[in-house]
């Protein structure tokens, strides 16, 4: 690693060899790119599948752009020995290797942790997969919704929604993103440790573990079942639209009741007593009754003026256009050659380091010349031969 200056991103000088595709892996390295790390995304023949996932403009996926901004792309065939040889030569120049294949796949290519550690003892080698690298479920294939169903996550959602007769239809990829942030944090902590001790690390993130970890209440409630139900946050129907309140502390509660002119409800619905659950349900019904005369926007104005937590339910579009987003610089424009794309900036915001989404959207294999020629020092003739042998692909 070259030493960064104080103004660089926090991970400037760190180089990552990134074998990942889909979401859980790519989003983790996107975050590292935001912090200034150099990410070399190594794509197999055909490239990351998400490159062509909808929504597309002239064949290019916009979600791909958001998940892979700031990375360099090289394309090579790892099933060929010359491809594996190139990977090992890149390994010499890298600090971190990151992959999210099904367990066993990297070994099949001869690119597993033991093989790479033998070549570079202080390598930080991180894997993300559905159930962990070993164990009876290790080789099961898993996408985020599978983990949502298998971890208790979906049934926990269903348990607080009496109207549902079956689990929800789900398109969100929560387990992927959650696993990505955990992986990013683990790789970064390992880099810190290597800086102090000189030692490498083997990181093994299981998406199932991640989801259990973020179900703290449910994980405990499963061990210590409660007699009464759990107070849940219920969307309140207003004259027009819905809003959500969260009077968690005593002060929140006082502020809420004063704002709507019902301070006497404190006695009628006493929270934080033995009858908390009944009182909570009663309060929610009473608030909904109050809200019949107001739009969600009006209710939000009235209650937020008092300082108690509230929001309208916003659509993605409304939320993207909140004044706060523009003021904080929470949105970045990038261009992938098919026009401008709005993206959320990195949530890893800091005062000194240059942490921000880097708006480079690489074409498949765009950096073959730079990485193989520049970083590895291959001659033009060598590179031409590798291209002719279909080891180095694409551009």
């Amino acid at each position: 690693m070259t030493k960064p200056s104080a103004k660089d991103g926090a991970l400037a000088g760190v180089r990552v060899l990134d074998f990942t595709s889909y979401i859980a892996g790519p989003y983790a390295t996107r975050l590292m790119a935001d912090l200034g790390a150099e990410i070399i995304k190594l794509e197999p023949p055909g490239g990351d599948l998400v490159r062509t996932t909808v929504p597309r403009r002239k064949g290019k996926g916009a979600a791909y752009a958001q998940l892979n901004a700031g990375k360099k792309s090289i394309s090579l065939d790892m099933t060929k020995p010359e491809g594996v040889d190139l990977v090992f030569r890149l390994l010499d120049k890298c600090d971190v290797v990151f992959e999210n294949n099904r367990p066993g796949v990297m070994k099949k290519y001869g690119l597993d942790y033991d093989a790479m550690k033998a070549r570079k003892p202080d390598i930080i080698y991180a894997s993300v997969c559905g159930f962990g690298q070993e164990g009876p479920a290790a080789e099961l294939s898993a996408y985020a919704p599978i983990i949502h169903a298998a971890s208790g996550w979906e049934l926990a959602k269903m348990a607080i929604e009496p109207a549902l007769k079956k689990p929800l239809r789900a398109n969100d990829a929560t387990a992927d993103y959650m696993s990505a942030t955990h992986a990013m944090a683990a790789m970064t902590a390992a880099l810190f440790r290597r800086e102090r001790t000189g030692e490498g690390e083997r990181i093994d993130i299981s998406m199932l573990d991640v989801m259990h970890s973020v179900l703290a209440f449910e994980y405990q409630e499963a061990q210590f079942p409660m007699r009464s139900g759990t107070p849940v946050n219920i969307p309140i129907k207003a004259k027009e639209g819905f809003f959500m309140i969260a009077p968690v502390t005593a002060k929140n509660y006082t502020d809420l009741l004063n704002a709507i002119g019902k301070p006497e409800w404190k006695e009628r619905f006493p929270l934080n007593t033995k009858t908390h659950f009944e009182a909570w349900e009663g309060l929610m019904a009473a608030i909904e009754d109050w809200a019949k005369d107001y739009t969600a926007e009006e209710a939000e104005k009235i209650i937020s003026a008092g300082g108690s937590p509230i929001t309208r339910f916003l659509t993605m579009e409304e939320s993207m256009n909140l004044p706060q987003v523009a003021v904080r610089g929470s949105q970045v424009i990038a261009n992938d050659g098919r026009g401008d794309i709005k993206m959320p900036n990195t949530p890893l915001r800091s005062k000194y380091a240059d942490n921000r989404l880097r708006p480079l959207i690489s074409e498949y294999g765009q950096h073959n010349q730079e990485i193989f020629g520049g970083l590895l020092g291959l001659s033009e003739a060598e590179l031409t031969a590798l291209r002719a042998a279909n080891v180095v692909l694409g551009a």
Partner: protein
Amino acid sequence: MSKVVKMTAPGALSGIRVLDFSGAVAGPFGARLLADLGAEVVKVEAPNGDLLRGMTPRRKGRSTYFGQINCGKKSLCLDLKDKRALDLVLKLAEKTDVVLQNFRPGVMKRLKLGYTDLRKINPDIIYCSISGYGQEGPAAHWAAYAPIVHASSGFEHAILSYNKNLDRPLNGSNATADYLAATFAMGAISAALLKRERTGKGEEIDISMTEAMQNLLAYEIQELQFKAERARPDYRPIRAKDGFILVLPLSANNFRDLANACGHPEWLQKFPLSGAERMKNFALVLSAVEEWAATRTAEEAEDIIREGGCPCARYTDVWSAMHGPQADFRESAVEVEDGSGPFMIPASPLRLNQSHSRPGRYVADLGEHNAEVLQSWLGLSPADTSRLAESGVLFTA
């Protein structure tokens, strides 16, 4: 690997000191992840303690929900509005590497514990704040808990949009925005520690839960800007005899494995999942699987389809999930204890196999480490700390 390798090397963050001023979930879980990796985390609590200490489920007055999110930390309890207490905390701030806080923006500044205050006495301090909307801007002062952020970030609307039969947003009790913000904070702090190691410079970190949630909606944000030329396939639960399963034949291989596992190779010709009819056929495949599953329990159906190689899961409650063979193999559930006895928590998902990365065993009672922390960090004598307790500067449960 996890089962076999039991490393006793110090954790990646051992030797790092953290003053944790946070409460509820987002800050405390971020600090717990730091503690799992060996950082010494001192949780600074007001006399009435972290809100979560009072939350169910409780045994003999102690919340295991609190315990899961705070195990491995030390507890220091004092009133930051008391000048004598504040002076002690400022001395601790001189000795710490990291400060983590999730008060509403402005509160720490009013307490004279803002970044600019602490930077004067500890120039290379790493100071991380988590809030609903960020430290500055028109929404900065809005009160926010996770469900509020779920509703205002577009997340709940996205869930609603996948379920056309729902006429109102879902009830919320999960704390996704908190946990997500926690892991962002933990990653940002680790990155800042690395940078400080290499440049000697500290950092101020500003995590917004809203930004965190919007990052989780890549598809939705892009779909808004660029109408998708076709919808994504619906991931819908399939009803079996006694429960539900989820099947995701997303690749050609997945589909082949599914059809073969169910004994219906003809599905491959009947419902081709490429070409113009793709979406319609995807729905037909799921209906065919539902018909097939009607005579099988969810567990049987899951076994058959999984063995065949297609992604599949039974909808499981968290209790069964935490006791599956895989969780046992990985020792994913860890026993910890508080003063009311032992209980299980999920191990840190941050598995660093060459170094210690497991949760600490003990959940501190309020103020349990008052004397220990002040003696070890500030060199106070036992007589000093007794005096502070007697004069009402330090509190305990």
